[in-house]
């Protein structure tokens, strides 16, 4: 018997890979107010976020590149930048979603002074949060039992709809009115004011309403809706500001009994609240 001849398989010849690895062209702002865009090329990867790209540029090309990030998962809001002209959280933005012809342009957020490269000075933004009366001032002491707040109450529901803001300043950067009017408090600060004027535990509701409707307040909003369009957590500051306008007008006509005048000392404390 002859053993069957072993099958000889011709070695599998694979076509040589001639495709070069895909690359992504990145233009990044370098400098402060005066500066220019620098171009880099980084490998294009699957599931790559814009923050990954910035990190790659810093680690492999430009160690002096300044930018901010912390959590990398859309919780802290510190990595917000302007990507192809749109303010975004870079950690939650996939390159595939925003790249135009294999290129992205990254700048710092708008409407704030630039410190270096992609980092901007957010002090003015946070100061306005205080100027709008956003600091909570309780009516009860620690010794008292917690307030019973009905979650179905319309005011509580209005506050709940706006409460998840994490102050990333994307809305502030998107707002044209902020760019025209330096005194305008901006969407985030007014959104915060709307949550506290609807909080029945807040002692200074009248003061907050006065601050949020005074100079630079809600009356300056043009209802363009950019804040609502770009908010990464889906809040509508536009709606909050419309609520403040409505409340301001109603309280102008009928003194709101719920928002009783706060003691003078407490009012002064709120107005002088540190940034």
């Amino acid at each position, binding site marked *: 018997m002859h053993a069957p001849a072993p099958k000889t398989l011709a070695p599998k010849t694979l076509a040589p890979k001639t495709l070069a690895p895909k690359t992504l062209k990145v233009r990044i702002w370098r400098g402060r107010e005066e500066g220019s865009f620098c171009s880099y090329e980084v490998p294009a990867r699957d599931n790559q976020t814009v923050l990954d790209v910035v990190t790659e540029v810093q680690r492999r090309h430009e160690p002096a590149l300044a930018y901010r990030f912390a959590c990398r998962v859309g919780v802290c809001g510190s990595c917000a930048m302007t990507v192809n002209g749109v303010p975004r959280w870079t950690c939650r933005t996939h390159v595939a979603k925003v790249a135009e012809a294999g290129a992205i342009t990254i700048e710092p957020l708008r409407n704030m002074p630039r410190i270096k490269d992609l980092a901007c000075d957010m002090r003015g933004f946070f100061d306005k949060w205080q100027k709008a009366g956003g600091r909570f001032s309780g009516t009860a002491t620690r010794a008292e039992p917690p307030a019973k707040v009905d979650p179905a109450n319309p005011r509580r529901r209005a506050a709940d709809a706006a409460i998840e803001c994490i102050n990333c300043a994307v809305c502030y950067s998107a707002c044209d*009115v902020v760019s025209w009017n330096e005194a305008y408090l901006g969407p985030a600060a007014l959104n915060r004011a709307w949550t506290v004027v609807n909080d029945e535990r807040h002692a200074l509701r009248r003061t907050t309403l*006065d601050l949020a*409707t005074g100079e630079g307040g809600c*009356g300056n909003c043009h209802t363009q809706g950019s804040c609502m369009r770009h908010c990464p957590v889906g809040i509508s500051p536009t709606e909050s500001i419309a609520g403040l*306008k409505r409340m301001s*007008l109603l309280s*102008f006509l009928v003194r709101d009994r719920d928002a009783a005048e706060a003691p003078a000392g407490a009012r002064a404390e709120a107005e002088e609240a540190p940034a």
Partner: protein
Amino acid sequence: MSERTLFAAQRLSALLLGPLVLVHLALILYAVQDGLTASEILSRTRGSAGWAFFYGLFVLAAAVHAPIGLRNVLAEWTPLPPRAAGILAALFAALLLVLGARAVLAVVVPA
């Protein structure tokens, strides 16, 4: 005047202007369709307390509403400081008031 008062004044004057403008437009259409002459119109408006009140209110509301908007436009789009924008807007309010009052008096005061 505080920002809040100006905001309320502009919204409340807009509330008045809405129906007043609609009636004014309807009136224009009626007068044109019906072929009323100027003397026929004047014969109806002169000595009429109703038309005096209607157009007097119209002029007042317009003189409050438009200058507040103009002040905002000047403050946002020109390098004028807010105070200068306020002064210009106040002058514009006075102009509207004078021209409007002159027009109303011309059609309601009996010849």
